[in-house]
């Protein structure tokens, strides 16, 4: 059943392995990264002019280079997302009313529609690259810690930590189940048997996960867990953070000011 899992699908072990390359962004505080990615996303989503969006994409590319994102894996992810929205983007020029640009059989593409499609494509790619560059390199435990410091409710942070901690365990568990199914000669196809077998496997995965969680809870209680993770690592907002905050604020402010100055393109 290995062929049931898309080989291009992101591997969960990436959550841990992506820690490797962080390049020049390594010294940044995780809170700075999260806030920077958030601000970048908010500003870029608000931009309308294609030239400014292109500038934002360049900025994101620069961040990606600084973070030394692995080229192949990043390209694969960007292309996976682009392929995903492609059909919507191709439709847009033909469904938006406006100045006709060219005619393709019975349908006419408009300038406004094309602009809008480009707008979405640039925005989505810029935000994605910036997020991967700034936050993608963090390990998930640090992410949870930083989110807690940014006032995310503790129960949600704990849920995140548990999910991250056990995603790989559950993935391996499911891998073992798939191996067992393959060993019994299961070949997925387009039939009821496939769906029933897969459904049973998914149900079993839930059962095993719940039973594991019971053991985990007992073990944690035995060790005196009362519902709080104690944090002994302090996060520090230092010079590199101030530098990035300053640079990014200035660049984003310029983008916003130019946008306001020139007026919305629509």
């Amino acid at each position: 059943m290995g062929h049931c899992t898309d080989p291009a699908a992101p591997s969960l072990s990436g959550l841990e392995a992506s820690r490797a390359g962080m390049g020049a962004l390594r010294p940044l505080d995780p809170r700075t990264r999260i806030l920077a990615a958030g601000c970048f996303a908010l500003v870029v989503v608000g931009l309308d002019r294609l030239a400014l969006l292109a500038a934002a994409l360049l900025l994101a590319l620069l961040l990606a280079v600084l973070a030394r994102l692995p080229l192949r894996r990043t390209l694969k992810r960007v292309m996976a997302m682009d392929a995903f929205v492609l059909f919507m983007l191709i439709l847009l020029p033909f469904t938006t009313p406006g100045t006709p640009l060219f005619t393709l059989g019975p349908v006419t593409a408009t300038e406004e529609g094309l602009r809008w499609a480009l707008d979405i494509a640039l925005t989505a790619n810029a935000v994605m690259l910036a997020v991967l560059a700034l936050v993608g390199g963090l390990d998930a435990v640090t992410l949870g810690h930083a989110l807690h410091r940014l006032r995310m409710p503790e129960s949600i942070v704990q849920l995140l930590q548990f999910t991250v901690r056990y995603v790989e365990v559950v993935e391996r568990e499911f891998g073992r189940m798939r191996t067992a199914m393959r060993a019994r000669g299961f070949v997925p196809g387009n039939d009821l048997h496939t769906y029933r077998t897969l459904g049973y496997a998914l149900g079993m995965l839930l059962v095993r996960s719940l039973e594991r969680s019971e053991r985990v809870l007992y073990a944690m209680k035995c060790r005196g867990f009362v519902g709080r993770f104690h944090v002994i690592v302090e996060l520090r907002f230092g010079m590199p953070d101030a530098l990035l905050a300053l640079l990014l604020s200035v660049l984003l402010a310029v983008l916003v000011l130019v946008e306001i100055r020139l007026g919305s393109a629509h």
Partner: protein
Amino acid sequence: MHIVDGALSAPVLVGGTLLAAAGIVRGARDLNLERIPSAGLLSAAFFVASLVHVPIGPSSVHLILNGLAGLVLGWISFPALFVGLLLQALFFGFGGLTVLGVNTLDIALPAVIVGLLCRPGVRSANAALAAFWGGIAGALAIALTALMVAAVLALSGDAFIPAAKLVVIAHVPVMLIEGLLCAAAVTLVRKVKPELFGMPADASAVGLRAAEVRS
């Protein structure tokens, strides 16, 4: 289906984010020391399951399983599915950052609705009836998700309406498959671990587990 950054209008983004936040807060009320480990592990399981590709015609689709999540997690579906989407957005760049709220709402609200609607049926004494309700839950959750994604797109601009219609049509086969999978999963879970649906543990199952402990 995930929506990317840049496609939706500001009112839709803000409204979706606020509603999602309300759902997450409501779900977090059910999270306590006893529930967090199980919610976390189930959230991990749904994350892993969503990476499974199921053959459909010449192609394959990846699962969402929000119906099953609603049956098992109830309101906790909101924080659990939010965590999954957050991890996908931050580490894999899948789905956007500003649309996180809308995406959470699109997937978790149907889960909660289906959970409230179909849970009594899934707990029914009749196994066939329970499987039927499981199938309804799986299919209905996908249908609602597709409709919400379509609505969110259509609200953001009339130009999206054809794309919105395509989203709904594209989800019809997914709906059928998730319905079948969910029915099968419900059948198995009822036999092995009915507690997952909040049912009292089966006497014979308890006997089995006692035997397991002794051995």
